[in-house]
């Protein structure tokens, strides 16, 4: 945040797990796409298309077996160093033995940020996700929606240049999802961070993203790249915009074909 952001380029990126004792598994076929700095890109596609794998490669937790991942200066295309990244997880992954504020301050503590600054930043992040007053609760004392807001605060407090959202609302009920989607849309709009959102929800992708990358099922490739021109700030009211409906239909059309194909080929291989 505040720093000149870098673009992330996936160039023919692919990953095949080849264990010695079993047949190789293609986790990601060949994907080329670009994540623009300061913008939200949604990756949407059928299960098994490798969108979470792509996210893990971008994060640096998985190494691609094909192609290249590059970080480049948007102005002149020069190579840049890996930007600071934080992830929000579908399963929340909060530390159950730490309180809300200790969870949020965990990364700052690891980085050796002095206590006063750590507390100040943690409390600010907790306030940003409307959890003030719950600092000393333990995760098990919170609802699913509140837990994921802690997860969001824990990622945002690190002031990442790139925010990775791995199906962040996948484990939540529909109503909680709606509220959190609006909240996340607002946070992302104000922070100006680069974000990559992996999701199954077309609605979520349209509400949050500037660009939607639709991926195909096995082999995982990019089927379409769609810019979302709807005005911001977006909220539930946006879903009644005719532009929203048109986009929704277009993405649904692409995905339906892909899901059908995935079901057929998945059934054949299984």
């Amino acid at each position, binding site marked *: 945040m505040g720093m000149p952001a870098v673009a992330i380029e996936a160039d023919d990126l692919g990953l095949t797990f080849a264990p010695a004792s079993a047949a190789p598994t293609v986790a990601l076929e060949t994907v080329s796409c670009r994540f623009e700095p300061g913008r939200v890109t949604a990756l949407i596609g059928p299960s098994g298309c490798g969108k979470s794998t792509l996210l893990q490669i971008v994060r640096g937790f998985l190494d691609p077996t094909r192609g290249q991942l590059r970080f480049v200066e948007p102005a002149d295309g020069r190579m840049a160093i890996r930007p600071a*990244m934080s992830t929000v997880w579908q399963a929340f992954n909060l530390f159950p033995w730490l309180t809300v504020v200790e969870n949020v301050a965990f990364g700052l503590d*690891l980085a050796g940020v002095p206590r006063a600054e750590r507390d100040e930043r943690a409390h600010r992040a907790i306030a940003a996700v409307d959890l003030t007053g719950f600092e000393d609760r333990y995760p098990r004392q919170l609802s699913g929606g509140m837990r994921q807001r802690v997860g969001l605060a824990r990622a945002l407090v690190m002031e990442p240049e790139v925010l990775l959202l791995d199906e962040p609302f996948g484990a939540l009920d529909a109503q909680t999802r709606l509220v959190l989607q609006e909240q996340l849309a607002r946070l992302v709009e104000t922070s100006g961070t680069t974000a990559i959102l992996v999701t199954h929800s077309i609605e979520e992708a349209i509400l949050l993203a500037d660009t939607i990358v639709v991926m195909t099922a096995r082999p995982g490739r990019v089927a379409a790249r769609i810019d979302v021109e709807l005005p911001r700030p977006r909220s539930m009211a946006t879903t009644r915009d005719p532009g929203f409906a048109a986009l929704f239909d277009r993405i649904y059309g692409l995905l339906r074909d892909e899901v059908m194909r995935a079901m057929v080929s998945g059934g054949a291989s299984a």
Partner: protein
Amino acid sequence: MTETPPISNKTAVAPPARPTRSLLDDPNVLGWGSIVLALLIWELVAWLSGVSALYLPRPSQIVVALITMFGSGGLVVDLAVTLWRIFAGFALALVLGTLLGLWISTSFRTRAVADMFIAALYPLPKVTLIPLLIIWLGTGGPFMLTISFLGAIFPIVINTVLGVSQCDPGLVLAARDLGANRQQIMRRVLLPSAIPSIFAGMRLGLGVSIILVVAAEMVVGKTGLGARLYLAGQILETEQVFAVLIVLAALGIVVTKLQDAVDASLSNWRTD
């Protein structure tokens, strides 16, 4: 609200108090009360039957023996010596066992090596090591420390490994994402995850340490509760035998209750 029938003032009246019933529902009252009752019956039976105190001393005689032994007989020293032997070896086992467990959990090679040693040594009754340890270490402090250590270390190592293996891999990923290095992951994620399991290992280990130290004292000790117990038995001081047994039982109660208290405070470590 207007449709709500007026609530009769029956609900406002407190249910009739039943003090006798609630007293008998209190587990503390039941627990201690039954012990007192058993002692009274014992006292009565021993007194009325006229059985020799050599076989069955009365509780009142045992209490007198206990007070005498504490007052002038050096039982305090014996208790302190035994506690020191138990907890010195146990503390060493806790530190080394936890570290070893973490190492085994995070290193494939260490695990392969340690698996064989644990499989060979864990089921071995540790009392069978007493003769060998005496040959190597004599019967002094190092021997007692080793025997207590050996009693506690296996359950602690095994439970640490078990606890770490049950750690949610998502938590390790989350910690890596927040910038944790390998050592920080061990200390800040794997170790806390394993704490309930490590504690279960400590419970088991401490029990074995107590048994082994008292048994070793009975065999070779000149001081300590076990030595005192054995000696009293040899000279048919039955009151003293009972007195030492009471001290050992009291030690057991204190240790168990302390562990229960720690267990209760571990609730934050449990995921949902």
